[in-house]
Structures are given as structure tokens and as C-alpha cells.
């Protein structure tokens, strides 16, 4: 637990000067919430249009039936589950940064955690769309909840899908609460500087934050406790998601390595997404002071680590498929690499394992254009990883006579694109409304440095 900031130091560094001058951090970080560059509105406009299209497609699909998706027997899960796993994975970096790194006192996280937490929340919100979209009868969603009813209907606690329901709803609520509690002091800063409608909004959201000692105490305790709660989630949520696959009999799914493999993959993909979001934000909003090479170096190391774990998992899967001498299993894996979906497999291996090895080179770890491109590649690679796992496995199961092929339909592709718009829309609104870097936590670092000297 971080010590509460020394009262005198805080007072010194925060005392408004005469004439009232804001702290540099406040000015810098709050800057994006003011002003209306046309590029922002263009981006938001595109995103909103995409979201309108997304919901149009969802309505269309719900009305006429899932037939508009590309499902072909025997592939009963398609783009929606792939994209669901993809977005859930994205969220993991945020939770890792905000919870685990918090507990480990990795101070460099303070600059990136707000962004990462926001990313988590929006990624989970995006991911949560997909299990619904995927349902044959979306209006029967409540069947998946264990609710008391006269008919004595109950859910099947043996089903990994039900675990999924709990895992995701838990994850979503914790992420939102975590994100929000961390935001409160910053909302208060925004409140103090806002006028008109914004003022009212911030006032409500700030929950009467005054920055008093007891409030700070409660705040930091909440963060600590929430970190404790969120930490197992980093491991459990994606483990549960992986069990959707691992608990089944499908060759290519039924593997014990799935939980760690998925968690590593999730963190890996999540960090790539953080890079993809932070690098432009830093550039556009001029936050170079706050997001330094040091942060990117650390994230690169994480990416390198998790990439290697993924690479190991891929190898282990292939090794076991061969070593087990179970023909359906080895055939499934052989056809992953050399079957109709060879492209996705080699994309996955190239983007997730081979490219990230370049990060062994120190210069590249802080080369932001390189990192940005790498992030994009990793995201594509991670999406394809789920594609490979789901589609190739389902298309080549035990009964060879039932083998088939799945090709995503235009509606599915539109919904996939829509999910990125949906995510971007929330993120763009977030940029506009809330400080993109945790002001108070950055200040904390600055104060800490002033008090004790030394590096971060």
C-alpha cells in the first residue's frame, strides 16, 4: 500500500499560486478534454456510424435468424466467439496493469494505468456483445442466469458456458468499479475546472470528492482491495474462457495447457492494444512528458515475455498432438498448418511469435513507430489465433464425413468491424470526458520523486 502523500509536500506542490495557476500536470492532461479538433469529430463520427451499422446488423440478424452468419455444419461457432475471445483478451492488459502491477509496486504503471483500465472496460463491454449476438435466441438470454422461478428451471453448472457467464459479469463489474474509483480524484479536478453542463456531470460523478485525508485514505484502501479482487480475475477470466474449449471433446480444444496459454495470450494481446492506443494518444495530445521511453520499454518486455509463453504453448500443442499418437488430434493440428486454414495459422505464428522476437533488440523496444506497427500485427495475430483454435478445430473433427469449411459472411464481417467502432466510440468519448492519464497518480510519483529523489 502506498503511503499517503505527506501533507506538507502535497500542500506545497498543489497550492494554487496567485494569480491562480493550475499545475502543469492538470493543464497538460486535462487539455484533450477541452477544444474540439476536427479530426476528433471525424473519428468519432466514423465510429458512431459504424456503431449504428453494428446495431442495424444485430437487429437484422435477430429478426431473420442466425442464418445470415456464415455458419456451416460442422462449424457452429464462428466470428462472434472468435471476436469475443479476442476482446476479452484485450481487456486483460488493463487489469494486469491496474491490479497486479499495482500490488507489485511497479511505479511505471501509473502513467499508463488509466488508459489501460479504460481499455479494459471498453474491451469487456465490446466483448459482452458477442455472446449475445451469438445466441440463436437472443431474447432468451435470461435462460443463462440462475434465477428463481416457479417452473423450477435451473441452469447447468457443469457447463463451461455458464462459468463464462459468471466470469464475464464479474469481470465486467470489477473492471468498471475499479476504473471508476480510480477516476474519482481526477473527476474532481475536472469538476473544479468545468463550467455549465459539464460541471453538473462531473459534480455528480465526483461523488463529493474534496481530497480530504479520510477520503484519500478510503480511496487508496479501495484501490488496494479492488486490486486484490481483480488480481485473480486476470488469471481466472481467461482461464474460464479457455475452458469453453478445453472442457469439450473437440480435437484441438481438449488440452490442459489451455488456461495458462489463453491467459498469456490475453495479456500479450492486451499490451499490444495498449501500445496501439497509447502511442497515438501520446503523440496527438502531446503527453510525451508523461509517457516516456521508460514506459514503452517496460511494456515491450511484457510483450516479449508473453509472446514467448505463447510460442511455447503453440509448440507444446503440436508436440502433444504428435506425441499422443491420437490420429484425430494430430490430423487436426496437421491441417491447421497445412490445411485450408494454413493462412491463419501462419499469420498467428509469424505475428505472435516471430515478429515480437525483434524486441530482444533494445533500440526497437523504445522505437515507437516500430512498436505501433508491432502492436497492430500482434492484434491481427491474436485474432487469428482464436480463429485457428475455433475454426480449424471444429472443421476437422472425429467424423470425417461431417468435415466442412466455414467462411465468414458479410454480416459477420460488418459486425466485426462494428465492434471496433463500438470500442473506439467509447474510447474517444473517454478521451474527451476524462483525463487520459491518472493525474493524481502521476503527481504522486512526482511528489515521491521530490521527496526521495531517484528514478521512478
Amino acid at each position, binding site marked *: 500500500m502506498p503511503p499517503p502523500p505527506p501533507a506538507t509536500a502535497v500542500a506545497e506542490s498543489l497550492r494554487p499560486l496567485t494569480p491562480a495557476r493550475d499545475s502543469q500536470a492538470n493543464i497538460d492532461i486535462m487539455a484533450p478534454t477541452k477544444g474540439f479538433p476536427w479530426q476528433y469529430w471525424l473519428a468519432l463520427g466514423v465510429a458512431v456510424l459504424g456503431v449504428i451499422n453494428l446495431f442495424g446488423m444485430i437487429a437484422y440478424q435477430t429478426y431473420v435468424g442466425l442464418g445470415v452468419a456464415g455458419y456451416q455444419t460442422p462449424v457452429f461457432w464462428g466470428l462472434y466467439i472468435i471476436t469475443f475471445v479476442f476482446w476479452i483478451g484485450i481487456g486483460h492488459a488493463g487489469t494486469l496493469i491496474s491490479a497486479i502491477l499495482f500490488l507489485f509496486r511497479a511505479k511505471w504503471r501509473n502513467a499508463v494505468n488509466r488508459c489501460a483500465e479504460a481499455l479494459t472496460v471498453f474491451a469487456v463491454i465490446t466483448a459482452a456483445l458477442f455472446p449475445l449476438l451469438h445466441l440463436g435466441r437472443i431474447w432468451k438470454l435470461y435462460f443463462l442466469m440462475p434465477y428463481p422461478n416457479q417452473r423450477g428451471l435451473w441452469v*447447468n453448472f457443469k457447463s463451461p458456458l455458464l462459468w463464462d457467464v459468471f466470469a464475464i459479469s464479474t469481470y465486467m463489474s470489477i473492471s468498471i468499479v475499479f476504473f471508476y474509483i480510480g477516476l474519482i480524484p481526477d473527476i474532481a479536478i475536472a469538476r473544479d475546472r468545468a463550467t455549465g453542463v459539464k460541471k453538473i456531470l462531473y459534480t455528480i460523478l465526483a461523488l463529493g470528492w474534496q481530497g480530504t485525508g479520510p477520503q484519500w485514505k478510503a480511496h487508496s484502501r479501495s484501490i488496494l482491495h479492488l486490486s486484490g479482487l481483480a488480481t485473480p480475475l486476470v488469471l481466472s477470466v481467461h482461464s474460464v474462457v479457455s475452458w469453453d474449449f478445453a472442457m469439450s471433446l473437440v480435437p484441438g480444444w481438449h488440452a490442459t495447457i489451455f488456461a495458462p496459454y489463453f491467459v498469456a495470450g490475453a495479456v500479450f494481446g492486451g499490451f499490444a492494444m495498449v501500445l496501439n492506443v497509447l502511442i497515438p494518444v501520446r503523440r496527438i495530445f502531446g503527453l510525451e512528458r508523461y509517457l516516456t521511453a521508460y514506459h514503452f520499454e517496460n511494456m515491450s518486455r511484457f510483450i516479449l515475455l508473453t509472446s514467448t509463453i505463447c510460442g511455447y504453448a503453440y509448440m507444446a500443442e503440436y508436440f502433444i498432438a504428435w506425441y499422443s499418437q491420437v490420429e484425430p488430434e494430430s490430423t487436426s493440428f496437421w491441417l491447421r498448418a497445412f490445411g485450408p486454414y494454413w493462412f491463419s495459422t501462419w499469420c498467428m505464428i509469424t505475428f505472435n511469435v516471430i515478429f515480437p522476437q525483434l524486441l530482444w533488440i533494445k533500440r526497437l523496444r523504445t522505437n515507437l513507430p516500430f512498436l505501433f506497427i508491432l502492436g497492430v500485427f500482434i492484434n491481427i495475430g491474436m485474432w487469428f489465433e482464436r480463429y485457428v483454435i475455433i475454426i480449424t478445430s471444429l472443421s476437422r473433427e472425429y467424423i470425417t*464425413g461431417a468435415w466442412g469449411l466455414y467462411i465468414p459472411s458479410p454480416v459477420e464481417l460488418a459486425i466485426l468491424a462494428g465492434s471496433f467502432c463500438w470500442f473506439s466510440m467509447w474510447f474517444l468519448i473517454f478521451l474527451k470526458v476524462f483525463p487520459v492519464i491518472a493525474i493524481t497518480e502521476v503527481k504522486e510519483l512526482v511528489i515521491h520523486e521530490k521527496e526521495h529523489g531517484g528514478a521512478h
Partner: protein
Amino acid sequence: MPELDRRDFLKLVGVGAGTAATACSDPVEKLVPYVVQPENVTPGLSTWYASTCMECSAACGLHVQSREGRPIKLEGNPEHPINRGKLCARGQASLGRTYHPDRYAGPLMRSAAGALESASWDDARAELVGRLKAAGGQAWIMGAPVGPSLDGVLTQFASAAGLAGRIVYEPFAHEALREGTRAVFGVASLPIFDVGEADLLIDLGSDFLDTGRSPVENSQQFADARDVKQNEHGGTRLISVGPRLDLTTTSADRWIPAKAGSEGLVALALAKAVFDVRGVPAGIDAADVQGFLAASDAATAASRAGIERSDLDALVDALVHAKHPLVMPPGVASTTTSATSTAATVMLLNALIGAVGRSVVIPPEGDAPAAANFAEIKGLVDAMQAGKVKLLVIHDTNPVYSLPAELGFADALAKVDFVVSFASLKDETSEAAHLVLPDHSAMESWGDAAPRPGVRSLVQPTVRPLLDSQALGDTLLAVIRDLGTETPQSSFRDVVQNNWSDVAWRDALGRGGVFSDFAFETPSLVLDPAKLSFSTPKLAGDGEYTLIAFPHSFLADGSAATLPWLQEIPHPVTKLAWNSWVEVSFATAEKLGVGFGDVVKVTTPSGSLETSIFPRGAIRDDVIAIPIGQGHSVGFYASEGGPGESGGPRGANVISVLPATTDERGGRVWLGTKADVAKTGGFRRLALSQWTDNQRGRGLAQTVSVADLVGETHDDHGDSHHMIDFEASFDADPDQPYRWGMTIDNDRCNGCSACVAACYIENNIPVVGEEQAIMRREMSWIRIERYVGEGDLTGGADRRPIPKGEKLGETDIRHIPMPCQHCGAAPCEAVCPTLATYHNVEGMNGMIYNRCAGTRYCANNCVYKVRRFNYWDYGHDNFPGLLGLMLSPDVTVRGQGVMEKCSYCVQRIEEARQPAKDEGREIRDGEVVTACQQSCPTNAITFGNLRDKESQVVKRGKEEKRAYHLLQELNTRPALTYLAQVSRDEQEGSH
């Protein structure tokens, strides 16, 4: 049922399904109870009527299941000697004709503007009578062969109306066999083959198990004759000779891939060889035979047939060593220009080997006129062209579609002043008529059939006419009276009853007819070589390939293309549906530079067509083959248009490129032309339901050799063969008396797919259409998979998948029916989050449609891939028009977004449970018969209670050397036990 009209009934049927399926979107509909309870109808209980299947000339007996006044399912009549309780896919589907969206709602007359407009029956009949009077003896009638009663009325009509002639037209009339039999035995009738009496069958392209003249009967005989419990060494052997693998060849023990049209040469060489070895049986003049056979030479025959001399010798060897051999004459697909002499040769050969009188009986010529020769039809067309036909009456046939385009029937029809059609369903011919007087469907009609001496079968109506149609017999009787001739009976029903006055009418109605043994006299040989000598088949044109037009297993001559189930159920040999295709060998495809689905242009001297390529291994390089039956331009399912729309034709009609040639005796020729094939660059995906026939050694469809069965050798099958522990299957509540299970004997299964059709109709399974079938979204609860051999580890990587295991001469073809296995430890159940699929106390995997949210996890986890998902609102959309009336009220119609699968016909179990409960006993073995089991012509499927050690299902499943569970290594503990197919060596036939 005076108070219940069609609409009300629709509501009644729809309400249960409708409310269950779409609870949130549909308004609540009201149930309409009977105001006046009709007699003999107990709501909720089925009534069964005996009748006769009118779908093909075999005339199988039917039991029509009727619920609340609507026939909903057809089953075989167990008392009927032809089908003995079984029914093929076509028979099952024929029920759909009654409810078909293509049905004419009432009489139509062509207006001055040229459109068909509805008219009253009185006006329409008055028009016909007027036209008949005005035709001045230049009126003709053309129609399919009919039963004796209707035939009598037609004869009366012909004389009353002073018709110039009557043509009995049937596309597959088997004229050559009839004429061939006449040439050898002096009797112009179609022989009856009892394949069960033979111990060696040589199939010269007859396809008797699939597209032959009586496939249900022959399949049953064949399976019984090969039953390994009755015949230790595997029973009857089958050797097929033909250019491509057809369904019968998939059951063969040896396949000699001879050239198309070489059956006659082979038969002649065989006859010569048998004659040389055995001489002639008593009562046959050796000199005549010798004269006929003189032309044959084994070496030449082998080389002209494109086979090895050793193959021919092996055939001879098998033939002379068999005790009771039988040679099956060529079927439609190999009807060449020398078809009559070929058939004659085969019949002579059968006489030489002693089959005639034992497994071949030659019935006396019947009273009804035989189907016309093709030459006679040509004569009619010429008369029409010459304007000598003023009026043409057409019933029960569609010559515009089914006559070769080269003959110019459609043009000739346009030259006829007035065309009258009695079609019940809209087709190409009726659309060209000036007057349409729609006939009842078979379910609404009286009638009879006399398929062979000793078998008289009745047709009785089982539903009040749904539309404003009139029975053909009644219309004709009325016309006869209008023409001023008295008729002895006033209605067609009376005509039928009068014809049956020699028997107890009610008893005959109850049984479905009168069935008695008939002593056949074996006619003596009258062979006169001077009258008939063997000639070589001639092929028109000089194209590179011989064009085989083969009858589609389900669509037959194209008349069944209108039935949706028959379009959707995959063709049992190729697993293709909904369209036409051209089969070529892999080598040919490579030469042409085309692959699966590429559109090619097939050109013959008579025309050209375009259709997709289907490359396969089991077809000779020098032939191409196109199924007969597609390419209709009219019809809701038959064409690509809907009702009232003129869509494009569905696929290509191969008849349009066939020559209008005849054989030696004027019979129709189906194998008569060469063709060229050219790539067009187009691509049209085919609805292929099984993409590979390679089982990769997974032991899905297993075999056991006869040697292993009799224990002569001990061959360890490695891990591909799994012996089973039956106790493990008893995964049900220990207090329950039942654990339902099934045994399927793959050795009896010949892949005919009757079970699939029965399942579709029993369980209200929607037909999804071509586009969805291409996406493999068909909803069938049982499918038949087909594998070649054990398989190997090749393939699987193709994007354009095609079965590749077949090869010429390969006979290790394994059919395996795949319904839900109702696992004891079911993978589907564990993963369903809502418990919509669950294990019931009697050990079955239940499916609660209402509870299904549609996660589809169960389908992913089902290792047998038997689950089907309602991607669309099939329940509402896929039963157009009256077809909704055909739905069984016992089975929920599934709504959008729910999963479904085989339920082991749980409604039939419940039906049996009630009387058992009333009588305070348990359900007896055999009381529950699933739809697939009921229909299976070979009795491959047995259903019953696994807890009853005396039950058939347990007894059959105990065949230790053959029983296995599918994918047993996954420990799903299926309730379904398969009995491995038996691989027979064709040499062991003489054991």
C-alpha cells in the same frame, strides 16, 4: 368433417407449434375444437388406412397414417407381398403431392388472351365435350400406365369419344426387356426377379437395389439372402458389371468396370461360355441357341468391353460354379440401340443357367395395354407435327419434359388445336395445355393396381379433397355421359368396387388388396435367331465421351423432382442434392482443367447443356454421366421459381441432349450418344453433403471378413475394431424398466436413404433449399455417410472438397446411417448451459426446444455431428401452402434459433406407452418402431429396450464379431450399436 375447413385446420395444426416456437413474436391463435365430433376420429389418435403407392410401377402397399382427417405419414403395408411393410424414399415423399404448393386449385381454361384462367367444372367439362365432338376422330389420349379400373374407364372414354388412339407413355417403360423376353420366351411381359433365390447375382447395369423396377422388394430379398446369421459364409454374392459405381455396385463383392453399353457383349460371351461348359438344359433346342451365340467370342468381347480377359473368365467361373446364379438385365442407364437383343441375351443366359422358373418368373401378358414403344410415340409426334391431331388429352405424365428435345414434342404440341391436361400438379406439359382439369392426388382418389398376377392392390382416399379437383375417373365418366354414352357405374368409386366385386370388398379395403400365390408357368424357349441377332450398340456423334443418362435415385424420370424431400436428401451415391451434375473421372477432369463445381458444356449431336462437374474416382475415363430428373422449368421445388413464378430451370435436363433413336424393336434408347465436354469458365457450387469418403482409419464404418466371422482365421483388427460391453450402455435411471437403444446392421444397409425420408416426414423436419444445403445446413436427423475402405491419412486440406477414395473396381464402399447415438455419457448434455438437452430417465438425450437459447455448444461437442440448428425460422417459412397440413401434430415444429436432433421418435414411444399403462404392463418389444426402422427396406435398423435381454435390439447387438460402438474410445457410451459390414470374397458364393 363438415365444420372444419382447411383454414381452421391449419390453425389447429399450427397453434401448438407456433406458440411453442415463437413465444415472443406471434399473436396468440385460437384453438378451434370440433363443433360436431366426426365419426371414427379420436383427436390425438391416428387412424390407419391401407392403400397403394402410386409413385412408381412397383405398386407397393401402403398404410396411411391419418390424424384428425389428414394423412401425415406413409408406411409400408406389412401384408403386401411386394414391399412387405417397407417403403422407399420416393414412396415416403409421395405424400407431399397431396399438399403440394404446385397443385391446381381448380379447373383452368385458356382465355382468348392466352392465359390460363379459372373456370367452373361444368364449363370446363362442357368445353372438353364440345372439343371432343368437334375433333372429328382426330383426338388422342396420352398418359401413364394406370390401374385396371381406371384403365377400363379410359377404354370406355376412348370408344365413347371416338379417339384416334391411346398412347400409354412412361419414360422408363423397359420396352427392351419386354421385347427381349418376347424374343426368347414369346411372352411380352416384364420378368419378375427374386434376387433372394440366387446365390450369385451378376448385375449387368441393372441397379436393381436403387433405380430398378422394384427396389424395395429386391433390396429386402438381397439383404435377407446375405444375412450372416442365416448364411454363415455371407450368402449371395453380387458381381457388378458397368461403367460407373451406382448404388447397387456399392453393395457388390466385385465390380468389373466395363465400357458403357457393353453389357450385351458380356452377356453374350457369358452365355456362350456357359453353353460351352454346360450345354443346354432339358427342353431347349441347342441348335437355336448355338445359332444365336455363334457371333460371340470371349477375347473380342473382353477387349470391346474394355475389361481384362481374366475378369471375363472369372465371371464365367463364378457363373458355372454357382448353384443358383441369376443375371440381372441392364436398367435404364444402359439401354442402348441394341437393348432388346441385350435383354434377350440376358434372358437366354438366365434360361441356360437355370434361373428362369426359379429366381426369374415370367408372368403372362396382362390385360392392360403395355406401355407404348418409343416408335409409337414418335408416330404420334409426327401426326401432331402434320396437324393430324386436333385434340390431345394428357394425364399423369409430362412428355414436354421427358421426351428428348430432338423429338420436338413441345413444338408438335403447339400445333395441336386443343390440349387437355389432367395434371394435379403444375408441370411443363400442363402449362402448355388449353384446358386443365386437375385430378385428385393419390391420397384423395380411389383406384387399384395389379402389378403382377396374384397381387391386386387397392387405392382408397384418406382425406377429403383439399382443393377443387376431381378424380380423373369421375371426370371421364361424366364426359362419357355428356357425350351421350351410358356408363354402367355413375362414379369411379363404383367402378372400382364393381371391379372388385369378386372379393370381399371391406376385407380387401382393410388389407389393402387381395394377395394370393400365383403359380407361374415357365414358358418354353421360342428363340429364333433369324428374328433377332445380336448387334453392336451404336452411339450418335463422334464426341470423346459416351454420355450416360442415369435415373436419379429419387427423382426417377423427373416426375419426383417436384417433391422437396427428394431434392434435399443427398443422392445416395454422390451425396449431391438439389441440382444436376456431370460425373467425370479424375483423369477427365484433369484433362479438361476443371474441378468440383466448375461448369462445363456438354455437347451431343442433339443439343448441349451446361452443368457443374463432379469428378469422382469410380467412373471410367471414356464416359460422362448426368442424372435424369433435373432441369424442370416449372414447379415450386422442381424449378428455381416459386409458385406462380417462372424461375430458371433447376439444373440441366439431360433428356434435352439425348437422341430420339430407338433400339431394334422400337424401344427408347437412353445410352445412345457420344458427347464432348468443354470448360466454360463458370463455377456453380454443388450442394455436397459429405466432403470426404476417407475415414482415415478411424474405424467409423468397420468391416469384418467372412473368414473372420466363421472363425477360420483370426485377424486382430488392431484398434479400429471395438468389441462392446453392453452393460455399459445402460445409462438410465436404475428404477426404470427401459433404456432405449438401437442396433444398425451396416451389412444390410445399402444406402438407399428411405430412413432419411421417413425421418423427415415423421419429425416435421424442414427442407432448407439449395442455397442452405450448399452451406451444409440441411436439417436431417439421420444421414447416411459413405466411406471407401479403411481410409488413409491423406487429404483433408482441400478448399474444394470432393470424395477421393473411389476408384475403378473398388467395392469396399461402406454406408453407415448416422442418427443420434443417445449416448449414456453424452458430450452434448454436459455443456448445455440451460439444460435444454438433458438425459432422461429412460436413457435418452432429450431436447427441450423451449429451453434452448441457441448457444450451439452441444453441436460443437457432439462427436457424431448429428445436431441440427434452426438458423432461420424454418418452422414458419418452410412449409409453404398446404404443406403445413402434412405436419405431424405429435411433433413440435421447431422455431428459429433452437437446436434439434433425432429423438428416437419419442412420440412413438409415448404412443405405445399409453396402452401399456392402461393394461398395466410394460411396453413390449416391437411395440415401438421408429420411423427409420419402419421404413428401412433391408431391416437394417432395430430399436428397442436395452434392459430387456430378450429384445431384438439386444439380441442383434450381441453379434460379438460385428458389434461396435462408434468412437468408443471417447467413452460416450452410445445406445446405438453398429454391426460391422461383412466383406465377402466373390469366390465364396458357392459355399
